[in-house]
């Protein structure tokens, strides 16, 4: 019997102000490793990610989390089970500790330190002002803030888009260690090289649809001409 997917989308469409963002998308995300949602800008990747923690709701179709329709899960509970890190870090006012306590006001000090450690930040950061962090540090703090809720899965919406190459690679290594530690990730990017470095599975989106085999091969071959175009690298075809 096949394992229950982490997420399933069945006939999902999303229309905003008469614009079709996603069109009859059916796919499943495996419950392990890093699944990369890949595609050109405007393909609907970020919106698809936001459907997974119900920051958006589909116009048609159904989204399931571990077999259960997300519409049947209390949205606040869902969002603590399905953590999200956004494209640009959004630090809240105050110290790093203040930020982490927003996620769980009753969290013990060692829990906060553990979240920072998982995001590859030293516990001494707790007393630093969130405004004084570099872009890479701020994004790691946002990751740690999300980890404070102890989510079962992490959604990463182009989290390295605003980072320099060094900070980008460090965050990628952090993502890998989190995934290897048993926490699956869904990572959105338009960067083929990054997908190649990170992906255990790849889903290619083109113009609001899951790319068919031809489109997928063409998209990957255009800018990703070596072994990464291997058609066995994902379920998203």
């Amino acid at each position: 019997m096949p394992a229950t997917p982490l997420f399933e989308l069945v006939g999902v469409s999303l229309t905003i102000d008469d614009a079709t963002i996603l069109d009859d998308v059916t796919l499943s995300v495996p419950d392990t490793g890093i699944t990369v949602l890949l595609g050109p800008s405007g393909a609907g990747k970020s919106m698809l990610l936001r459907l997974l923690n119900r920051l958006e709701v589909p116009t048609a179709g159904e989204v399931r989390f571990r077999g259960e329709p997300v519409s049947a899960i209390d949205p606040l509970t869902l969002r603590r089970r399905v953590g999200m890190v956004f494209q640009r870090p959004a630090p809240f006012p105050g110290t790093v500790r203040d930020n982490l306590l927003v996620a769980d006001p009753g969290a013990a000090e060692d829990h906060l330190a553990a979240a920072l450690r998982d995001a590859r930040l030293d516990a001494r950061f707790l007393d630093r002002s969130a405004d004084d962090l570099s872009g890479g540090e701020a994004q790691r703090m946002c990751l740690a803030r999300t980890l404070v809720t102890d989510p079962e899965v992490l959604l990463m919406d182009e989290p390295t888009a605003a980072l320099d190459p060094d900070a980008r690679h460090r965050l990628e290594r952090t993502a890998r260690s989190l995934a290897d530690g048993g926490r699956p990730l869904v990572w959105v990017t338009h960067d083929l090289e990054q997908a190649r470095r990170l992906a255990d599975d790849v889903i290619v989106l083109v113009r609001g649809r899951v790319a068919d085999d031809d489109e997928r091969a063409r998209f990957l071959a255009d800018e990703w001409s070596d072994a990464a175009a291997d058609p066995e690298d994902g379920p998203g075809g």
Partner: protein
Amino acid sequence: MDDAAIGWGGLALSLILVAVAVGLSVWQGLRLERDMLWASGRALVQLLAVGYLLVFIVDDDTPVAWAWAWVVVMLGVAAVTVRRRAPEVPDVVRLTLVATSGSALLSLFVVFGLGIYPIVGRAVVPIAGMMIGNSIGSIVVASRRILAELADRRAEVEARLALGQPWQQASKPFVRSALRTALTSQIESTKAVGLVFLPGAMTGLILAGADPVDAVLVQAAVMYLILGCVATNVVVIGLGLTRQLFTPDHRLMRLARTGGPG
């Protein structure tokens, strides 16, 4: 009280200042002469119409129900005025009606329920007018600030929602900031009263021949009422509008000032 009446001759003389304004507009090429003349004429016609109606409403022989009917009309006009000044605010007419009705009820209860003034048309109409009139500006400022804060700080609001915060909590820092902005101007003008400007009620009473200290007592009471009224309006608008901007499943709706995520 006769000293306070300026008569038609006095009114005609005051038109000299309108002529000065028109002359300045011509001299500077502002092309506002027609607007100035139209505004001056229209204001006179409106005030005369209201004045003649008020003669009837505040007459001691007229049932006070007419005064309350006048208050209802003022509430409606206030709601329409707010919609004109803040058209981007969703459902603003209903929200304004709720806010101004609530604050008017509260302030009128204090004034009339506690016996500060007797319930007569001569008191009901001007006091309600001051409450409702002062509410308009504060409602416009509060609602526009809330919209702007939530649109500009969308990323932070959504980061809070994504941590599992309910909308009430996720929006709180931003709504609080907007409400502070809306209330601060009223607090500042309350502080400056008497030092910087003499407010309308007091000026009117002194011009009408009242003892200045009596006029001050009336004005102080009016200022306190306006402060309470504005605070009530701002909070009601804050709660009501914020609720409108989120869905029941805790999502921030798309707002005019910013695009959503790509």
